[in-house]
């Protein structure tokens, strides 16, 4: 039944999902789990682990979540722990922050982060800054989560990437998972963190299945915040990315490998704190760096990485400038052909990699 529901709710590129494993005490093997299911499982485990944790947002309870991420949770935990809110982002985000100030551990879902713009004052001025302004008296252990960035054909107002906006602000932690292991581990770490954490999920990834190792399935599995992961080893060029673009980078790396170019693909996992050390380590090996993100180019994640690499110890290791592959500098259009050109495609990455490798300083 669960498998059938999962199959019906997956998006494109999905791999059929096996039934959830039961705890029989026997050693579990690796599983193929969608990002959606791994988030769902993570929420379930954290709600179970700590009574102070609760989930609020639009449609999270009786609708099972706008994207079914919170499926089954209301049935299991009831009205007190899983709460449907009216369409009042600024209001319910503020309520969630107040509850966190008073010692609870809310998970505040935004149907997409586009709508969180309405609540951004509460996120930045009430959540992020309060621990500092109070001289350490009032911590705010809250998680804001929801889909971020472009989906497919939802046009400009529903396609913005907020990684740079939230990554800009001290007092926040910002994570951007790609795989099921990322989603599960980062969300669990976020809930357990004592600070406001933004979890930037991605709608197109919800239905994608990834392998979840035995270790990653355990109830206390967390992915540390602020640490990147090397998804693919390589020695010719470093690709740094986050969220869905990690997958596109890996596709590009496969194609480039056929031409003898071995790419090292780094999955940032966290936007803030940014694991610049992992990038520096890689650049010392490869001497070339290309950043890939879905967000707009100006003042973005790639811009920040470029600046830090230039200021840092590995500038002299570069044989080429750092190049950025980003969303196009325009509001995301609706028509399919236009939308495709407004977001990085695999061919854009391979093109820029070759530019980087041809360019000598």
């Amino acid at each position: 039944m669960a498998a059938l529901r999962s199959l019906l709710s997956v998006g494109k590129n999905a791999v059929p999902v096996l039934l959830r494993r039961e705890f029989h005490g026997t050693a579990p093997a690796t599983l193929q789990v969608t990002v959606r299911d791994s988030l769902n499982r993570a929420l379930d485990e954290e709600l179970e682990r700590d009574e102070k944790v609760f989930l609020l947002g639009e449609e999270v309870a009786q609708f099972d979540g706008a994207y079914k991420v919170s499926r089954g949770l209301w049935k299991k935990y009831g009205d007190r722990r899983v709460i449907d809110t009216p369409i009042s982002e600024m209001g319910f985000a503020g309520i969630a922050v107040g509850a966190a100030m008073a010692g609870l551990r809310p998970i505040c879902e935004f149907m997409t982060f586009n709508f969180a713009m309405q609540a951004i004052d509460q996120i930045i001025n009430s959540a992020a800054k309060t621990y500092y302004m109070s001289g350490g008296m009032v911590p705010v252990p809250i998680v804001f989560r929801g889909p971020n960035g472009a989906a497919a054909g939802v046009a400009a107002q529903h396609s913005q990437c907020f990684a740079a906006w939230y990554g800009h602000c001290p007092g926040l932690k910002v994570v951007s998972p790609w795989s099921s292991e990322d989603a599960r581990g980062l969300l669990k770490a976020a809930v357990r963190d004592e600070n406001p954490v933004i979890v930037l999920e991605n709608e197109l990834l919800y239905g994608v299945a990834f392998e979840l190792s035995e270790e990653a399935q355990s109830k206390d599995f967390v992915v540390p915040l602020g640490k990147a992961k090397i998804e693919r080893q390589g020695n010719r060029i470093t690709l740094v990315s986050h969220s869905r673009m990690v997958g596109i980078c890996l596709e590009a790396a496969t194609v480039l490998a056929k031409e003898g170019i071995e790419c090292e693909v780094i999955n940032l996992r966290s936007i803030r704190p940014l694991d610049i050390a992992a990038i520096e380590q890689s650049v010392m090996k490869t001497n070339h760096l290309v950043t890939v993100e879905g967000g707009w180019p100006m003042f973005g994640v790639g811009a920040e990485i470029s600046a830090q690499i230039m200021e840092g110890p590995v500038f002299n290791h570069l044989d080429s400038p750092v190049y950025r592959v980003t969303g196009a500098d325009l509001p995301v259009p609706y028509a399919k052909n236009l939308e495709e050109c407004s977001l990085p495609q695999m061919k854009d990455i391979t093109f820029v990699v070759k530019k980087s490798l041809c360019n000598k300083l």
Partner: protein
Amino acid sequence: MLVISTALRSSATKSAARGLAVSRNYADFASEATFETKKCDCFLLETLPPTTAVLTREQGLSYYKTMQTIRRMELKADQLYKQKIIRGFCHLYDGQEACCVGIEAALKHEDHLITSYRDHAFTFTRGVPVKHVLAELTGRRSGCAKGKGGSMHMYTRNFYGGNGIVGAQIPLGAGVAWACKYNGTGGVCVAMHGDGAANQGQIFETYNMAALWKLPCIFICENNRYGMGTSVERAAASTDYYKRGEFIPGLRLDGMDVLCVREATKFAAEYCRAGKGPILLELQTYRFHGHSMSDPGVSYRTREEIQEVKRTSDPISLLKEKMVNSNLASVEELKDIDVAVRKEIEEAAQFATTDAEPPMEDIANHIYYKEPPFEVRGCHPWIKYKSVC
């Protein structure tokens, strides 16, 4: 150290006038008196707060001392600001003392409160000693927020500031009330806002959710007639702020009468504790200063109006009159309190102006809670601060 809120709430044994030279025998005074209070305007309510209030001598002295302390503290802040020892924003509360003192007198230990940037007085009534309030204003290390927050960002137990963004404290307060209900503590949260903030959209979003979920939240509008330089008539299509909750019961009352405020808040707290949901109070009050220290306060209102209110409705004078006329205290006794308060404020100001600034090592602390030490970038790549707590 005298905890103001406890003294205000309970009938503590220690008189606020302890240690003074007594020129009259305490047996000469009445132990309590009953006063009439103005009837509240009500909205969606069938019962009302009582129109009489009992004031014990002890309570009266306590309220008087607290209000006088707030008055002198705010006037001292005015002075320090003009000397440029206090910087940035400074929003003073003198004239509105009956509101915060009356509210605090009605609250219990498990109750919470949040307010706006006009927060010095509440910081004091919620338990922070004057010297730590002033030291925060002067930006010193003994400030209640270690000098990191300043005038608009003061906090203590069960007090969530001090909020700089107009209206933002209302959803936050409802969230605190949510936590009270979630934890089953029986506590309520008082969420303060002004007539200016009353037009914020997030307040209506909060009213909807608070009523829907029956949150134990007392929304209080301190209507001091002016949102910065804009009078209520020029800002609001309806100035009946106590009706703004639409489906939330409301009371409008005299915010210059500390007893009226106390009785209404008690009524409101009982209402919330009974699980009936939120309630809205509008306190009609007045600020003697301008909106902030950069506002003389006379371009949008007349000096005559200010003088008139000071003459007829000063909350401290009103209480003094009540107490003297009903033999709860003597004029000399209250004068002695004035002298003691002035001395206390002078000492606090002395402390606040001589204490050291926060140490540079503290600049990057308090960014994250319970985080292993990490580095924080300064103004250029070669400046790195350490964050250790």
